[in-house]
């Protein structure tokens, strides 16, 4: 009998065992790619010139901006996962959403902390209640709310549905964060990379910024897949304990 091999489809990943096998193969390569991207990024950061106005503090941008991008990107990932939970009922969707929340909270904290370390010497204050900073703080609090929700509801399926609804409600905040600097007068600077007329940053500073953004994104993908693997194992442990309890 001839068995014809077909390419792996997205639906195949719905099988947790198949997903675990794929993650096991991908993780070492992703970790290596992340380390290489960070090594190149750090060299470029060290070689980057000081800004003519901000001096050496511009180097804070190389961690603040990638963390800020990831904070929003991770919420987008969670929103897609939320649709996967509510619409397609994909078995791995709420696993992806749950594990992304903790990583998203960490990067949002980093964005806020590095931002305030940049704000003090440049603006004269660690914090100001302007639209950009406040909307990012709201996102951080919503990340914490999601983590609390996951911890509170014991049944992962019920927790997944509730978290999916909260995630989609929270997605309203994403355009507010993005356009806050255009819609309101804020102390925070406007968009300087993704502009219709091209980036307003000099290439010597833009290059390390983009490499660091790539490194942070690879780090997120690596951590997220590893955390998803842990969550699948945790659910296996939970199922086995339930079986044990019912059998006793």
């Amino acid at each position, binding site marked *: 009998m001839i068995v014809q091999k077909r390419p792996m489809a997205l639906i195949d990943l719905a*099988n*947790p*065992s*198949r997903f675990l*096998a794929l993650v096991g193969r991908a993780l070492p390569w992703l970790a290596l790619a992340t380390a290489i991207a960070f090594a190149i990024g750090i060299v470029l950061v060290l070689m980057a010139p*000081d800004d003519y106005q901000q*001096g*050496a*503090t511009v*180097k*804070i941008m190389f*961690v*603040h901006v990638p*963390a800020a991008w990831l904070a929003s990107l991770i919420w987008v990932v969670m929103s897609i996962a939320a649709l996967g939970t509510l619409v397609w009922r994909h078995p791995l969707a709420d696993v992806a959403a749950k594990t992304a929340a*903790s*990583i998203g909270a*960490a*990067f949002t*904290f*980093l964005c806020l*902390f*590095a931002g305030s*370390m*940049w704000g*003090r*010497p440049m603006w004269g204050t660690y914090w100001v209640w302007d639209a950009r900073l406040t909307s990012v703080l709201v996102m951080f609090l919503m990340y914490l709310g999601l983590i609390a929700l996951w911890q509170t509801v014991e049944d992962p399926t019920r927790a997944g549905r509730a978290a999916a609804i909260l995630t989609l409600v929270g997605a309203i905040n994403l355009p507010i964060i993005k356009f806050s600097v255009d819609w309101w007068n804020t102390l925070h600077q406007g968009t300087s990379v993704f502009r219709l007329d091209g980036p307003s940053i000099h290439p010597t500073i833009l290059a390390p910024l983009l490499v660091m953004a790539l490194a942070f994104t690879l*780090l997120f993908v690596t*951590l997220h897949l*590893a*955390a998803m*693997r*842990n969550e699948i*194992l*945790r659910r*296996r*442990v939970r199922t*086995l*304990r339930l*079986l*044990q309890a019912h059998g006793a």
Partner: protein
Amino acid sequence: MALPAHAAFIIAAYGATIVVVIALIIWVIGDYREQKRVLAELDARGIGRKTG
């Protein structure tokens, strides 16, 4: 070599980044080891099941 102006703020930002990244890495590795340990323990007690 003299430190740049506002060096403390730059060091604090990068220091926090290193701490957060290392904490995340320790969290995923530690959690993986813990889940594998518990699964092996359950398996040793005969409470395992066949999974792909």
